[in-house]
């Protein structure tokens, strides 16, 4: 499955490539930031500022962001520039941009990893069955996969968004529950719909890659021998075919994490994510204030770029070290 040679290839790849090292370091930092978000955040990321007229973060009726921004002192108090209190300033409703940047990593990484895992759960068995049985079964299953590939990823995601009710799952935050971080939100909203939609869009790549592997492995001597001994198909698939096709699946999975992070950001930017705690959504909020308050849109964007770069670099490293020549891994986004 994972041989010593593979491991030494990986090590060599890591020590000889500066970019691979950079990717690993970046990802470790991002994961740490996401894990310890409540300890790193300087403010409750959901706490808004308020206008004294209305007592809420939204300006009084008739307030025109574009024309009154410079003169309106109230708005100045809600949306402040970077300072020692608010490291990266506050957004259009007075929430701390730095704290939302830190928390945004959680949503991005969780959706990326969960979505990929879910896509593997659908795509890998699908591909195993298609490739192992071949013939008519393979034909039917792969024609269905072809249909899924007729839709650009984002377009299919938008269609699925139309079907599912947008929902978020509020996951309790263990650090806050343990009382280690005062005043931080007790739960993290994970956009469940987006995770499922991403998996439904991405799985077909896993199906194709796994199928290709299974197709070549099923005619190997050891598989034939196992079949001759009367070992059941499900056992052969799990014990022989799957472990021997795992390398390209891992490389593909790494790159799909980046794809899903970008997909989640895009859907959130378009307002279809169902959660407001997302880098993509922050960019949407910042775009109308781009000229006068660029920090609202700049920093969450940097977060996305860093997350995607780190995952892509790790994907490149794995691909070069394991050299599986996987279809579908050329896509970086």
């Amino acid at each position, binding site marked *: 499955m994972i041989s010593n040679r593979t491991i030494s290839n990986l090590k060599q790849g890591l020590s000889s490539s500066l*970019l691979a090292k950079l990717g690993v370091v970046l990802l470790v930092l991002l994961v740490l930031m996401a894990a310890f978000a409540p300890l790193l955040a300087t403010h409750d990321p959901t706490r808004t500022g308020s206008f004294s007229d209305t007592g809420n973060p939204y300006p009084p009726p008739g307030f025109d962001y*574009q024309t009154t921004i410079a003169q309106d002192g109230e708005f100045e108090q809600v949306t402040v520039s970077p300072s020692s209190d608010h490291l990266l300033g506050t957004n259009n409703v007075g929430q701390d941009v730095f704290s939302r940047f830190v928390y945004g990593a959680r949503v991005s990484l969780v959706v990326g990893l969960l979505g990929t895992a879910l896509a593997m759960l659908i795509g890998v068995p699908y591909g195993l069955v298609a490739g192992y049985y071949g013939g008519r079964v393979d034909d039917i299953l792969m*024609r*269905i996969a*072809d*249909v*899924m*590939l*007729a*839709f*650009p*990823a*984002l*377009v*299919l995601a*938008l*269609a*699925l*968004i*139309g*079907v599912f*009710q947008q929902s978020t799952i509020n996951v309790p935050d263990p650090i806050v529950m343990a009382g280690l971080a005062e005043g931080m939100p007790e739960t993290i909203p994970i956009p469940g719909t987006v995770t499922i939609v991403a998996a439904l869009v991405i799985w077909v790549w896993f199906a194709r890659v796994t199928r290709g592997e299974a197709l070549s492995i099923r005619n190997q001597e050891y598989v034939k021998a196992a079949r001759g001994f009367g070992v059941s198909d499900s056992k052969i698939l799990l014990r022989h075919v799957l472990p021997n096709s795992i390398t390209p699946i891992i490389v593909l999975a790494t790159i799909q994490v*980046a794809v899903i992070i*970008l997909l989640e*950001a*895009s859907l959130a*930017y*378009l*307002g*279809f994510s169902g959660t407001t705690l997302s880098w*993509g959504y922050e*960019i949407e909020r*910042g*775009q*109308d*204030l*781009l*000229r*006068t308050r*660029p920090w609202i*849109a*700049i920093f969450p*964007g940097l977060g*996305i*770029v860093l997350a*995607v*770069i780190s995952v*892509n*670099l790790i994907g490149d490293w794995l691909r070069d070290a394991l050299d599986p020549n996987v279809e*579908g891994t*050329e*896509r*970086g*986004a």
Partner: protein
Amino acid sequence: MSIAKFLLRRLFQGVFVIWGAITVMFGLRVVAPGDPATLMLGQGATQELIQRVRVQEGLNRPVSVQYLDYLRGIVTGDLGYSWQSNREVEAMVIERVPATLELAIAATLVAIAIAIPLGVISATRRNQPADYGATLFSLLGISTPNFWLGLMLILLFGVWFGVPYPRGLRIAFFGPIPYPRALIINVIDMPTGRRPVGFLDAVVTLLQTGSIGELQTWLKHITLPAITLGTYFTALITRLTRSGMIDEGGKPYVTATEAKGLPGVLIRYKHVLRNTMIPIITVLGLQLGTLLGGAVITETVFNWPGLGQRLIDAVGTRDWPLMQGIIIFIAFGFVTLNIVVDGLYQYLDPQVSTE
């Protein structure tokens, strides 16, 4: 198998895939929550009215009958009516196609124009500063979400390109346009109230009056969106060109042509690059979907009056007939382009087996 036979088979597969795509979209509408008649009429509609619309739209018939009816409609070019605007979906789709097409073509041209020279330079100056620069650029290019890139470009160059407003160009359609006129994109710069400018429009003006003003305006409008949409492809093609040139450059025939005394530039561009084009075209074919998906987002950022923006509106209002129409159209275009790319592939590399 001959090329004609191969293409015929691909065409047959294409028809099957498009039928599948139509079926998927129909199925999604059937399982989608919300009663269509209520969505059409809005919340305040009376039960009686809802019932009447259900009968009128044939929504009370069995799903299988509705499905066959929908298929029949598509074959005859009838995609139904939008629930929101009550206009014919096919007209709403077609009038938006030129804008998206212009953007996609411009983005592809930007990508090819930058990426291929960059890739060649990167490969010939391997491990030199120029190569590191190109590598870093392509890494950033494939990792940057294009909506953010678009906003950053507006922030940095907006003023320069006469973008007067923080969010994009504020371009908007001037109401529905009759069919033939839709071939010429009608784009209007809202703050200045300038006349619509599309590429064909600008060219026609140039031919009629000899004035290049229109063309300049068009160029100003399309530059930033084209760069935004094209960056991912620029990055991807740079990567592919570089690795392809390096692989190909090590082959014996290159040494032979060098020994023959052919100038390096000629070898690089005539022989090596040409052989590198084949994998590039394959990947580009696979990536057309990303281009179309990227267009959806880019259009939103720049308020570009294309199909993508209309799709976002349709999803937002759950206007299923319009959504279905646009998505089926995109799938159709995507599948057709892929067949074209396959044909091109055959043409470029006669060695490729058509089996």
